[in-house]
């Protein structure tokens, strides 16, 4: 599985949806993932890829990591995997 599919798998599991229901333009809110679900997803992503995601729940918009859509999360993870491997 590529990075995109692995991230979608994690998000789908958090949202209790099928991976096919997670669209690239979905926001976490669309998928019903709240702040606690977000923090848990980021943890799962860090464990999956053995990376560290710079995310502070107090200032999500100021983190380098863009969580505005599934697509932006995937592209952020791809960058981090490249940088941190």
């Amino acid at each position, binding site marked *: 599985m590529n990075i995109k599919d692995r991230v979608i798998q994690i998000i789908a599991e958090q949202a209790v949806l099928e991976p096919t229901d997670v669209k690239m333009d979905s926001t976490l809110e669309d998928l019903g993932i*709240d*702040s*606690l679900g977000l*923090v848990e997803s*980021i*943890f799962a992503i860090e464990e999956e890829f053995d990376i560290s995601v710079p*995310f*502070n*729940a*107090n*200032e999500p918009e*100021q983190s380098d990591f863009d969580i505005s859509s599934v697509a932006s999360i995937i592209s952020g993870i791809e960058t981090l995997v490249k940088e941190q491997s």
Partner: protein
Amino acid sequence: MKRVVITGAGTINSLGQNVKDTLGAMREGRCGISDLEFRDVDRLAIKIGGQVKGYDPETRFNRQQLALYDRFTQFTLIAAREAIGQSGLEFSGELAARAGVVLGNSGGGMTTLDDNYRTVYEDGKNRVHPFVVPKLMNNAAASHVSMEFNLKGPSFTVATACASSNHAMAQAFQMVHGGLTPVMITGGSESMLCFGGVKAWEGLRVMSKDGCRPFSANRNGMVQGEGAGVFVFEEYEHARARGAEILAEVAGYAMSSDASDIVMPSKQGAARAIRGALRDARIDPTEVGYINAHGTGTAANDKTESAAVADVFGAHADALMISSTKSMHGHLIGGTGAVELLSCIMALRDGVIAPTINYDEPDPECALDVVPNEAREANVEVALSNAFAFGGLNAVLALRRHS
């Protein structure tokens, strides 16, 4: 119902190792938050905290005591000695039989837990010290206070995360108020500043790496502190009959549960607790001059708390002062309400309002008078202390000036 007054106060925290030094630091707007110093701190992402420094347990306790006292118990006893010493009370006979100790605490002996997990998991040893359990249990501090001062009445520990101390003090108030006992020792303590304690908090991603800036638009999370605050709550006539010095009157309290989310605060839950405390204490909202805010410095708390205060006080919200002393001593979790009550006493008794330091930029969602950066002189008749915990459990205390 009996009136309840405070006749003794004690503390140790990152601002000072007694009440005088702590209030002195609050007046000066000094910051007690600094680089954490303990084993494996280099493996943490969060490396700052309101740690008690320049503290030598061996000058306060003997070797046998230290074998039984976790850091949170040590802090509690130091604060209790100061508070009970100030009150001038000695517990014997009928008074000893009725007086008890109710304290707030959340984590218990985290340092003891951390050290001994290391021993068995990291060092692979199969034997731990025999006192691990009596040292780490979170009622250990209350028990040792009861033993040192011969308090034989109702005694226990209250655990409601960040509201533990306020819940404990509300409970102690109720006991004296209801005539169950003329004296209760109350307050709370916490010491989670060890590798495991901070690592656990890191996971939630609500901690700041660089400082605690409550209500400021550039705030980015909470900073942990440690220490204890202990008070003597005494029935008014009992205190008066013996000519005790009265620091303030505890006028009432309220508790509420958000019943909504395990971490996100609720404006309605907070407002119900504030409003309830005013009603219980028969205080008109316009009498309130100062609120010690829960003010954690997280995005969520500070705006929710500001909205709750605006909701309860209406136009008077703009006239009262509200500050977060966590900006100076950090968040003492289960002990925080106790240390923060000191700032309410200072406001009522000395007419000095502790500031919210590190305040850089106004946040339109926290548009209250947060007493930015510098202490202020003011005549205050009534002060409130807010505590809104993880788990949605809230407790607000109302204090009145004693004149």
